[in-house]
């Protein structure tokens, strides 16, 4: 199990992990925020996170609060009963035994694994950092080939039975959906073009990490596939996407070939899919995988810390480009591990490989 405070000096996790340490440090450096600074910060950050930061500062003294660990998850799984009305009827609440319905039990376990990664690797208390109860609806609609985060909860379809089976089968997809919630609570990235592809890539990165952490797989052992096992055996393919080798996840007569590019040389310009957010995400996905491969060991350690710090550090604008994101990861690596460290070098080299200028 990975406990960040064992790996990093206290300054990175000063007292409580609800608020990004980088933000806390900046806040703590200022006695009183000026009106302008406050307005700027409100624009940059999700407002509740900001208030949480201020509340944390005022709670520095009580020893009971210091070193507080994230609370256990509070899960509820609902059955939408093939309708499109959310959330449906509750079928499994926190602490209750398995129901015997695979979709319900996979969703319950998947939410638990996701909660555990954020708690153990980042000291984050649930999706919003403040113990948000986790809710998911299964059996949404009929023959529904999708899973999504609607801004408040997770939703899973059962698949059409021809191309896709049920979407709860893949832990990386469950982690992917909840990561959209984490991105949302971290200030958000507009769901279009490069910012949208980064939004998608962050969901793939943290989705893969959830799966790797649950299986205790090192970078070398991991498949780096997103959505492995979702296809029926009628489809020629192994998964929805490959982070390690974008463009190789499937090649099927009916579905066509995996369209993901693996570098900026083959960046796809399209109006479909909000500007190709699920297509061009292959580029930053591969960059993360390259960093993890260069550093070896477990991806939920140093590589994940760099990406998490970048996501939650408050420096990403809603329209962040690949280049700005690359520079932000390099800055995070430098801040966490030092200039010229192996991690800093690995990040710069990874972006160079996928042809994104740092």
């Amino acid at each position, binding site marked *: 199990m990975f406990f960040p405070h064992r790996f990093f000096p206290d300054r990175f996790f000063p007292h409580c992990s609800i608020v990004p340490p980088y933000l806390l440090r900046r806040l703590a450096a200022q006695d009183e925020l000026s009106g302008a600074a406050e307005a700027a910060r409100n624009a940059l950050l999700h407002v509740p996170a900001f208030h949480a930061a201020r509340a944390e500062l005022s709670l520095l003294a009580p020893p009971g609060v210091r070193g507080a660990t994230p609370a256990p998850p509070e899960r509820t799984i609902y059955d939408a009963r093939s309708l499109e009305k959310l959330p449906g009827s509750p079928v499994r609440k926190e602490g209750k035994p398995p129901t015997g319905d695979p979709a319900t039990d996979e969703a319950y376990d998947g939410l638990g694994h996701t909660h555990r990664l954020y708690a153990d690797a980042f000291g984050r208390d649930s999706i919003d950092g403040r113990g948000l109860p986790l809710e998911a609806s299964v059996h949404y609609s009929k023959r529904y080939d*999708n899973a*999504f*985060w609607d801004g408040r909860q997770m939703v899973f379809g059962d698949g059409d039975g021809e191309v896709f089976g049920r979407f709860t089968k893949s832990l990386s997809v469950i982690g992917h959906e909840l990561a959209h919630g984490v991105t949302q609570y971290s200030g958000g990235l507009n*769901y279009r073009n490069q910012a949208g592809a980064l939004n998608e890539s962050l969901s793939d990165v943290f989705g893969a990490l959830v799966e790797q952490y649950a299986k205790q797989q090192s970078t070398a052992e991991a498949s780096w596939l997103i959505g492995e096992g979702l296809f029926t055996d009628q489809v020629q393919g192994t998964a*929805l996407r490959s982070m390690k080798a974008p463009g190789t996840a499937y090649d099927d007569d009916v*579905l066509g070939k995996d369209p993901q590019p693996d570098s900026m040389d083959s960046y796809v310009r399209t109006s479909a*899919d*909000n500007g190709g957010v699920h297509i061009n995400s292959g580029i930053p996905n591969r960059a993360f995988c390259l960093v993890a491969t260069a550093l070896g060991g477990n991806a939920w350690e140093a590589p994940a810390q760099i990406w998490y710090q970048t996501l939650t550090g408050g420096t990403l604008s809603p329209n962040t480009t690949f280049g700005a994101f690359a520079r932000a990861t390099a800055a995070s690596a430098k801040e966490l591990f030092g200039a010229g460290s192996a991690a800093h070098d690995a990040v710069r080299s990874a972006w160079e490989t996928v042809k994104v200028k740092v």
Partner: protein
Amino acid sequence: MKITVQRSGGVAGMQRTWTVRPEPPEDTDRWQPLIEACPWDSVPGAGGSPGQPDRFMYSIRADQRRAVLPERDLTGPWRDLVECARAAAEQAAAQDPD
């Protein structure tokens, strides 16, 4: 007459396209009311508001008319048109695999 529905996005990010070419006059008479029922002039075209993460985006064409709709706006006559087009295209594909 030609009706094309392109569905993109979803967590899988797989683009699916369903095309129907109704033959005049019987088939076009059947499709015309479905097309006319849709409020083509009151939805944004390409470049409208982005959808929610991982939800489908629909690009719908009926001859010269076009609409781009996020999944949550695919209701009423739009949904009827899309479901009919998909069913007809899949039926045609099943009858003629090539």
